[in-house]
């Protein structure tokens, strides 16, 4: 079982990601904690709901969230993929999931996820990270303490500093 940074600790990760090729329309769905790609979810939604108590969703960064709003209640985990760490769309998606759609389950960053992005990612609503293979998760934990009091309001602290500043 691979590891995950969750709530700023290193934990075992029970979730498996399914590729769309592994789950065509008719093949049996694997059991256990599965992150279903959006295309599989859209194709076999009712079947997944009836066969799985815990459901995970796996999103590419070009996903339009609005049509998913009614489905968010089913997901324990939403994974947002970072094809490249410099692709910043996932930051807006996480923030929209938390602030606009009030999603309260786990939001994990997956793909090209690196030490130096963790601080900003936790600010916009991520709470779990599957680091890129070969990266030092223990050292990455230090990133959460990079800045003590940032200026902007975000998911971790809704009020910007100018509404909290004490002289």
């Amino acid at each position, binding site marked *: 079982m691979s590891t995950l940074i969750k709530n700023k600790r290193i934990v075992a990760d029970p979730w498996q990601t399914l590729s769309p090729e592994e789950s065509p329309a008719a093949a049996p769905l694997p059991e256990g904690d599965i992150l279903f790609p959006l295309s599989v979810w859209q194709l076999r939604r009712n079947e997944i709901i009836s066969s799985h108590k815990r459901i995970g969703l796996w999103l590419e960064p070009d996903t339009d969230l609005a049509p998913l709003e009614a489905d968010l209640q089913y997901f324990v985990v939403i994974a947002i993929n970072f094809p490249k*760490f410099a692709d910043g*769309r996932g*930051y807006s998606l996480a923030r929209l999931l938390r602030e606009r759609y009030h999603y309260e389950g786990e939001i994990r960053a997956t793909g090209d996820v690196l030490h130096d992005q963790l601080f900003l*990612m936790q600010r*916009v609503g991520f709470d779990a990270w599957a680091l890129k293979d070969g990266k030092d998760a223990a050292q990455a934990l230090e990133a959460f303490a990079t*800045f003590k009091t940032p*200026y902007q309001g975000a998911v971790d602290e809704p009020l910007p500093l*100018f509404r909290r*500043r004490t002289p």
Partner: protein
Amino acid sequence: MYRYDNYDFALVRERVAQFRDQLARWQSGALSDDEFRPLRLQNGLYVQRHAPMLRIAVPYAMLSSAQLRALAHVARTWDRGYGHFTTRHNMQFNWPRIEDCPDILDYLSQFEMHAIQTSGNCIRNVTTDQFAGIAPDELIDPRPLAEILRQWSTFHPEFAFLPRKFKIAISGTREDRALTWFHDVGLHLNLDAQGKPCFRVIVGGGLGRTPIRGEVVRESLPWEHILTYLEAILRVYNLHGRRDNLYKARIKILVQALGIEEFSRQVEAEWAHLKDGPGTLTQAEYDRVQAHFGAPAYRTLPAEDPDFLRHKAEDKAFARWVSRCVHPHRVQGYAAVTLSLKAPGQAPGDITAEQMEAAARLADAFSFGEARSSHEQNLILADVEQGRLHELWLAAKALNLATPSVGLLTDMICCPGGDFCDLANAKSIPIANAIQARFSDLDYLFDLGDLDLNISGCMNACGHHHVGHIGILGVDKNDAEFYQITLGGRQGSDARTGKVIGPSFSAAEVPDAVEKIINVYLAHRHQEETFLDTFDRIGPEPFKNKVYEDRAHGKAKSRNEEVTP
């Protein structure tokens, strides 16, 4: 000017520690070159042709004398004794060692300076008018809101990895001096019908490979909504801007693709969710920041100082300097002064450590200890008593900071070009120097009057060649350096890009071509007409005919002829 409080200091110091750690992990191999590159760029560190380049932020152009001395110390200790002012107010050091950069930034942090977001695909240093706060045509001082934007954009958690860089300029005057029509976002501070501050929001302008004048996305936005509105613009851009092609990734391409109406609709839809949220500015915050920009202790002075008038009447060289380097001030008896960094033979915008320290002394002695950098790559002392201008001129002259050429042909904007920059197609500083050498006669230059000549070494247009009355762009043709000339570009409220006049020139041909262009102007001008007036009246054809008179019209010479003229 704004002074850091404990929060500001803590963030800048934490940034130094973060960067030191990133550098160490890169050196140890834990971070690959590709992984380190965006991190170092977001901290102003480029790896250049000869050496790294470190770009220090000068937020909205303001510099204290202590900061100028600190920059001089950096130049002397870690560089080769000089620095370079860019066209976005910042200072670049071209010769630091990578491993020294954390120490340089640690040192500068004591003086409230940093290199945060001076490069990279993030929100860059906010720029404004170098005469902010003192310009007679100013409606509202833009600096408090520029500082508020600086804080908001610093380590913005959602917008650190945009499709491409994002530049904001803000202007509070009737005449635009901040190139707001050619930024990703341009902001015009204004007063609404009730006398309340509001913004005109312009989006999608830019120079570079595809020069586009921005379009108004909102005519009047009450000031307190600026952060939430910008977040809406940036979110639309972050989610939908192109990431597949570096050259099509700026917001201007998205705005062009969607059309301004559809782009505006998407922004408004996003903003509907953010409006009146916690990001809405408060009067208390505005007042807190604005208190840092209060007027200095001006004295009550006569409108015209008799000694000043006498010196001006008696000393032609002083009068010349006054006519080009002294600018009006909203307070009676005061003036703003440009300390020119365009002395003949010098790379435009370069300044030695000695000149930085001397400028700091002049700022202390003449201008309440503050200076500004301008996007034309000069230094400004904004609050000088008219009666002391002559004394200041004598001091500046001795320091080679009094070249009386501001706004003239030789006050060129020029990027570092192929001598330093990895992106450049061609050198730009030798072209600037060759033109300076050709047009060295001051009487002649004064007779020519207002003329902006801008030079960029590549399409990225750091030298703003598109908006020069005469623009020169370095291009690469079969691995040789050539220069394309544009005419008719301009800054200001009527800002627009110049048009290419024809085939490009070799470096050796450029001064001749410029001279021919000047001669056409002199032959056609009516009394009191500026270069631009004449150009607008007669159009580009007479210029083209003269410049290409020896060539088949519209046809480039063969390559061999061009290389060996």
